[in-house]
């Protein structure tokens, strides 16, 4: 294809003429990205506070690590509740509660003197805060995109990797300069105030802001987004979603995929050092995964939006599972970096198409509860996958089993994806027709244009 033809091709296939930067949806995406960056950065930065806590209190790294595991499980278990709260009370109010708990948790951690306090403050309080803070964001952003949801969620989910990359450096500098306690205190206060200020500009839906959603076209009906009728209709529809196979399959798929990559994210550095690679080189390899995966993290939802989620998700899961097998024979830095370069791409796309496939299956619906259940699967998968490498190494003295398990879980996820319904048709079409038949402005959901698969 000659170069001059690329422009029209991209313009036609990605509907570039329909896009504009002058839309309030981008403000919502930016605020959502800031929330994701802050939450994920504090979570991912936990590793850098372990040594200071060991030095000050003499606790074992393992005992400190339990608070991280507890936080992961609490966040996972609370995700469906957070999703329901976002749908019932609005994302903004739910996130506000999350900010208060975030502040309480961070200040408490900064004043911790006993191990149980760390478990409660970081494991429980921060775990709940993180669920309230992060789960309602994606469904709220989805409310703002009548079309082109893949573009919105793609940009939002890039922040999931970008946050740790930017904030961990800052937190490391602060810990060295002012100590871990003051760092937690400062981060808690500054992060809470900053997010509270940003929430002043956050609106749960375009209807509540008297605006139209991104991609709105004449003929699209405004959606009801609050009130008694909305709550009743939404409750009914969520029950209807739970009667579809896709609802359960997507929880399962998220669980399997997260086990698959958590094994690698947690186990890669010790795996490399076990095979004689210097620690610094191993850490660089891990950092490269975050950077390379940024590309597919952003692009995958757009591709899913344009070409259908099912094939995009299948190849992401298949690539993640098959790519892991390269580790079975990797011994040199070059072989490990080849693995990183190849594996990071499907890994980046593994979990980012879920908001898009929800839209394609269920229409323009408040998807907080559904997304919350999917994040329950993801959270439990991350907790299990994070524990597997160390457990398997302690028992077998190597990482071969961990690599096999990682591949097995990801490929099992790919197999379940093959059993999903095509995304050409919404799964509950009769509901979409009948809500119109009320003769009133009670539409809670709206179908979306069919996708390609």
């Amino acid at each position, binding site marked *: 294809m000659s170069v001059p033809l690329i422009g029209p091709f991209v313009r036609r296939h990605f509907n570039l003429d329909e896009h504009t930067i002058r839309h309030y949806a981008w403000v919502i995406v930016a605020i959502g990205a800031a929330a994701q960056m802050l939450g994920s950065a504090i979570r991912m930065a936990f590793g850098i506070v372990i040594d200071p806590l060991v030095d000050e209190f003499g606790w074992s790294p393992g005992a400190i690590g339990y608070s991280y595991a507890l936080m992961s499980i609490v966040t996972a278990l609370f995700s469906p509740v957070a999703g329901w709260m976002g749908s019932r009370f609005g994302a903004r109010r739910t996130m506000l509660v999350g900010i208060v708990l975030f502040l309480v948790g961070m200040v408490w951690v900064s004043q911790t003197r006993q191990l149980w306090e760390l478990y409660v403050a970081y494991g429980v309080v921060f775990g709940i805060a993180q669920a309230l803070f992060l789960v309602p964001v994606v469904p709220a952003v989805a409310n703002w995109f009548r079309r082109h949801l893949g573009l919105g969620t793609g940009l939002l989910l890039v922040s999931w990797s970008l946050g740790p990359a930017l904030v961990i450096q800052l937190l490391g500098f602060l810990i060295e300069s002012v100590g871990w306690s003051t760092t937690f205190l400062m981060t808690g206060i500054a992060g809470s105030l900053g997010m509270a200020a940003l929430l002043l500009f956050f609106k749960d839906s375009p209807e509540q802001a008297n605006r139209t959603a991104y991609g709105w076209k004449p003929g699209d009906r405004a959606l009801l987004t609050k009130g008694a009728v909305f709550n009743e209709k939404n409750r009914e529809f969520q029950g209807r979603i739970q009667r579809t196979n896709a*609802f*359960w399959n997507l929880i*399962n798929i998220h669980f399997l995929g997260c*086990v698959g990559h958590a094994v690698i994210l947690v186990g890669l550095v010790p795996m490399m050092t076990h095979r004689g690679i210097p620690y610094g080189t191993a850490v660089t390899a891990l950092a490269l995964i975050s950077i390379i995966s940024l590309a597919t993290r952003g692009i995958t939802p757009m591709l899913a939006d344009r070409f259908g989620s099912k094939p995009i998700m299948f190849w992401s899961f298949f690539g993640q599972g098959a790519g892991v097998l390269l580790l079975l024979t990797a011994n040199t830095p070059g072989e490990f970096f080849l693995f990183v370069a190849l594996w990071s791409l499907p890994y980046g796309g593994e979990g980012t198409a879920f908001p898009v496939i929800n839209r394609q299956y269920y229409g323009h619906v408040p998807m907080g509860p559904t997304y919350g259940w999917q994040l329950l699967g993801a959270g439990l998968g991350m907790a*299990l996958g994070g524990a597997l490498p160390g457990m398997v190494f302690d028992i077998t003295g190597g990482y071969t*089993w961990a690599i096999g398990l990682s591949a097995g879980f990801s490929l*099992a996820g790919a197999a379940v994806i093959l059993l999903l319904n095509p995304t050409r048709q919404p799964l509950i079409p*009769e509901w979409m027709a009948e*809500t119109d038949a009320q003769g009133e402005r009670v539409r809670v959901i709206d179908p979306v*244009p069919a996708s390609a698969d």
Partner: protein
Amino acid sequence: MNRQASSKPVDRFRQRDDGARRPWLGVGLLLASAVATLAILVYFGAWAASDRVTAREQDPVPAGTDVAAWEEGLLYVCPFH
């Protein structure tokens, strides 16, 4: 997709038999994943228990030869250990 609103304020959706639609495949696959995960954990747990028991048998002085309840349970459940 043509979605003309009906003039009749009748919600035919409510008249459908919800009970006819059960997500057997989705729930079944989720349960299969849960069972497989549990089996993997039992297998490795029993492996660890077996190693600990063997180690104590070879050097019984510091730890004794008693088998802990969790070790006994995992070894009982796992068919491979």
